[in-house]
């Protein structure tokens, strides 16, 4: 255990991420609407020591009730439309929607037209688009941090 912690401390020193601003946070609820799992795998690594979203106050939360942001991946399949809307409806206002990855933006989507609703923006208003197939963890982190900057004062801030 000690070795693990020492390794991580060394790693953090090497990566040398900037110091976070104090007193800001963004609670993110992730909803997969039919991705290829690439966006999920990269989103998981946005919390690895290399991007370390938690350090900047950004965390994935277990309920839409706790969320400021709905982070949506995939092209929105017919079967995920209702769960997506239910998650959105459960969120307290003000709330934001982030479309993560090219499928969520409606680019180069493959599949049967009768199985796919369309890009996120055809279902919900989108506040931030993070393109990429899939976007890398540092691109996801940069996008969410920019959202945090742009919404300073307009989103509930918790610490």
């Amino acid at each position, binding site marked *: *255990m000690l*070795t*693990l*912690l020492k*390794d*991580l401390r060394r*790693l953090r020193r090497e990566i040398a991420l900037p110091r976070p601003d104090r007193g800001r946070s963004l609670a993110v609820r*992730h*909803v*997969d*609407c*039919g*991705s*290829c*799992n*690439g966006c*999920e*795998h*990269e*989103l*998981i*690594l946005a*919390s*690895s*020591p*290399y991007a370390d979203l938690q350090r900047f106050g950004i965390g*994935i939360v*277990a*309920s839409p009730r706790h969320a400021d942001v709905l982070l949506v991946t*995939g*092209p929105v*399949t017919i*079967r*995920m439309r209702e*769960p997506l809307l239910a*998650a959105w409806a459960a969120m307290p206002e003000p709330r934001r929607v982030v479309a993560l990855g090219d499928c969520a933006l409606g680019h180069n989507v*493959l*599949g*049967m037209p*009768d*199985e*796919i609703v369309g890009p996120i923006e055809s279902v919900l208003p989108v506040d931030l688009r993070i393109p990429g*197939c*899939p976007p*890398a*963890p540092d691109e996801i982190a940069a996008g969410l941090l920019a959202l945090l900057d742009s919404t300073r004062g307009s989103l509930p801030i918790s610490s």
Partner: protein
Amino acid sequence: MTGYSERVAEALENGWSFAGLYAVAAGGPVRVALASETGDIRLETVEPGSGAMPSIVDLVAAAGWDEREAHDLYGVRFDGHEPLRALVNHDPDFETWTVPVRGRDPYQVAVGPIHAGVIESGHFRFQLVGEKILHLDARLFYKHRGLERAAEGSTLEEGARYVARACAACAVTNGVAYAQAVETARGLRAGAELGRVRTILLELERVWSHLNDISAVCAGTGLAAGAQRFAGLTERARRLNARLTGHRFLFGSVRVGGSNVTLDADAITFAQEELGRLRAEAASGWRELVFNRSFEDRLSNVGVVRAKDARRLGATGPAARAAGIAVDVRSTSPGLAYEGFVPVVPSRTVGDVQARLEQRHLELGQSFGLLEAIVARPVRPVAAMNAGTEQLVAASRVESPRGATLCVVEREGDRLTRVHLRTGSYANWPVVAFAAVGNMLPDFPLINKSFELCYACADR
């Protein structure tokens, strides 16, 4: 039509194993893929009379999902598969897709399709008494995009895009399985050099995937230091992929009929050095996990799938090997650079979470060893060679990080008429449901992580 079940039964007795079943078109015909111990694939074709044919689930429980899918998507009925529960179809009626549970005080817990973390979408319906799981019905296919149907009519080259889009975590495996099937259909075969390039890509995929899986099991027990350590290594493995092929998941690196991947001497040197470092650091991180008692305590005798059940249910990949079934498609893959490959199994072949975790560690060591041997000299573009006769239907199997993946390609001229992908995840999902039974509900996330299956390539 009589004789189909008998032919399948006879093949099973002669050492063939079930590798998949799919409907070619609405109402049939239906093809069953069987794999021999030496790597041959045989397709048995049945024309259902008036839309119905005999079920083989009594012979092969592993065909359960395949028959349910063929029914839901292609309208084929399977006599003897009773009840034929909905799989892909999302009928709102609870009775149509769950197994009834009766007794004193059973209750249900519904989880998903949206989960409490960064997890793909899927629904789990647990039947419990107290905290004990009596039964689990997994309802997947929330992510069904109809990729196989959408691919019909495209050229054999374009078809690769649909297969690649099925799943990022199995992108190379699915791509190689598709490329090999198309090459067989066209009378082409991979020479040693093309086999070497593809094997490098397959093993790079396994390295990041297994590092991710170890991180996931640590996360499943709440061991943040282990999860973060192995997440850091996963990040490095993906960066290595990007450095070598331009893409963190190796997208676009597998092509039909050849390879365009170029690795010059500098890239090879970098890859060798970085793989060496990853190997050493993964080994050091692993030692820390093994000696962490409170971590190890969470793993043993949880989510047990013994060899007998693993075989019956069609478990494949690390899930099967952790139960002591030393089967790996890599040992019978002539188009790839796996000469002399021998599957490993863990020290305790009891098929629990601990064994599946140890299996990842052992396979990581194997993959680093394989890569050391084949990432030894530069890689240049190379084409497949002419091998002989063309075929209208061809199949290929490739070992993914999650088990044997089957790809069948059917064509008319240069056009796809049908493509079917049965991935290691698809094969293992019913095994996850079985593994959950008898355990505590709070252990399910950990059991699920110890399989770490993709929803995307099961749903397609």
